[in-house]
């Protein structure tokens, strides 16, 4: 792999950039691998990367139905944060966040991690108490967060209307080292690094069946034929249920649509990520200048990658109230993705009823921020056959015994 640097660019500029090599190879599949990862999104590629980097397993194929990074990795609002409440969530998201800090250097690919800070607005007293609880939990989890005053909120984000008549801002949970990254670059950076380790990324190759013998996985049938493997990792958000069915088990998952949108680009006016959960909306400004906006999920099973438009309207009315200056901007593009929702809205990184077959799914609406941590934990699980401390709580059997990892811990409101 030729290193990327400003000098390489200068050298190539002189010959009109004719000397750049392919970022990743596009090989045909071999007959047999030590491990196959199904799904070349961020999570799948990160899994493969850490299989190689942390565990020395490089005879790996990453099989992708479409184009790499084309699922939710390329459709999200690129927020990175780890200010979670529950210990297990905080651990894996903080692992991920800390890996994002050095990802550009580790991968020699600029993923533009921008620790500009993430604030979650508290707009009711109930929310204030909830975020104070998270701040206390984070203090014990080693995650730098702080509950800040409305005045500090306004300083950090001057375009915020903190005195809205309806939901004045009472404070915010602030994670200064949270931020954003360039989503496509994460997939491309991992892909380039995996390819450089000798791994095969096989795009436009759909898995049609999972084969096993004596309860152990032996390989997958694909549109490019049978490919044998000793270990199989399924990392296919949105289509986990289909793949699980091929492997003979059912998941506690529903696939629903999640939507996002961007405005036309304007000059920089917002240097933090703001999430307003009372009114359901969040927004940041991309390096291109677009306001990147997301909201809530639909409430029904849907594989079309198209959501219901009223959710976009709900999000925008919330954000116009919160950020009055966006009213005259224009929505440039809206899109949807398919997200896996589990029974407790937390992910699954788990062994499965099928031997040597592992699954990583259920990231719901929060997958992008977890990519490196998720890959790290999944690689450990696949390499050792048993979960490490990061993955342990996320096993798929926790529901049966009621051992929830519930981040949506706000039951009703008070009397």
């Amino acid at each position, binding site marked *: 792999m030729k290193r990327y640097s400003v000098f390489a660019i200068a050298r190539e500029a002189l010959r009109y950039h004719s000397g750049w090599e392919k970022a990743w190879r596009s090989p045909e599949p071999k007959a047999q691998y030590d491990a196959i990862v199904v799904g070349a999104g961020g999570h799948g590629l990160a899994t493969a990367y850490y299989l190689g980097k942390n565990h020395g397993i490089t005879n790996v194929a990453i099989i992708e139905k479409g184009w790499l990074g084309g699922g939710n990795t390329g459709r999200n609002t690129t927020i990175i944060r780890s200010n979670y409440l529950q210990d297990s969530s905080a651990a894996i998201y903080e692992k991920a966040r800390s890996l994002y800090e050095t990802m550009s250097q580790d991968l020699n690919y600029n993923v533009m991690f921008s620790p500009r800070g993430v604030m979650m607005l508290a707009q009711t007293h109930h929310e204030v108490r909830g975020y104070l609880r998270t701040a206390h939990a984070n203090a014990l989890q080693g995650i730098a967060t702080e509950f800040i005053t409305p005045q500090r909120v306004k300083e950090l984000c001057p375009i915020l209307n903190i005195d809205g008549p309806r939901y004045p801002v009472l404070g915010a949970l602030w994670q200064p080292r949270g931020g954003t990254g360039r989503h496509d670059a994460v997939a491309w950076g991992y892909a380039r690094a995996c390819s450089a380790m000798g791994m095969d990324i096989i795009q436009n190759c759909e898995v049609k069946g999972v084969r096993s013998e004596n309860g152990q996985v032996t390989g997958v049938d694909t549109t490019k034929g049978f490919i044998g493997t000793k270990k199989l990792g399924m990392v296919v958000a949105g289509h986990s249920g289909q793949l699980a069915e091929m492997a003979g088990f059912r998941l*506690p*998952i529903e*696939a629903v649509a999640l939507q996002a949108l961007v405005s036309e680009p304007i000059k920089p006016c917002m240097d933090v990520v703001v999430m307003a959960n009372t009114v359901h909306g969040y927004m940041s400004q991309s390096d291109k200048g677009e306001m990147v906006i997301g909201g809530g999920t*639909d*409430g029904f*099973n*849907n594989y079309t990658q198209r959501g219901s*438009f*009223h959710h976009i309207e709900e999000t925008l009315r919330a954000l116009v109230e919160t950020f009055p200056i966006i009213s005259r901007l224009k929505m440039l593009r809206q899109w949807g993705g398919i997200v896996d929702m589990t*029974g407790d809205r937390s992910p699954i990184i788990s062994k499965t009823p099928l031997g040597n077959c592992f699954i990583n799914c259920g990231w719901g609406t929060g997958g992008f921020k977890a990519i490196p941590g998720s890959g790290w934990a999944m690689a450990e699980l696949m390499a050792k056959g048993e979960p490490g401390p990061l993955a342990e709580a996320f096993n798929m059997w926790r529901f049966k015994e009621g051992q929830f990892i519930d981040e949506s811990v706000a039951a009703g409101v008070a009397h």
Partner: protein
Amino acid sequence: MLTLECPYCGVKADETELAPGYEAHLKRFGPGSSPEEFEAYMFARKNPKGVHFERWRHAYGCGKWFLAARCTATLEVFGTYPAQVSEPPADIIKKIQARRPEWKSGWQPDGKGTK
């Protein structure tokens, strides 16, 4: 943006007049049931890419829950019917079969069901 006809009041309801309720025809397992039965009832969800039976409430209307047979891959609606049944009515099954001859998945929790 779905429209579903409420079988109780006959209104072709806009999605915004409805509240979704996920999988239909679940059988409740209470005290005395096995962990597997209870887990299946609470969590294991049919999440088909294709024909699905689901619950909707005409929340901004007559307030009644009803059931819909819908394709999750195309959003085609095969029909809606009242909730007071433990399996899809025969005419709905027939409509699905007419539109999806290849349809095999059953509606029962164990994957079996009328075909």
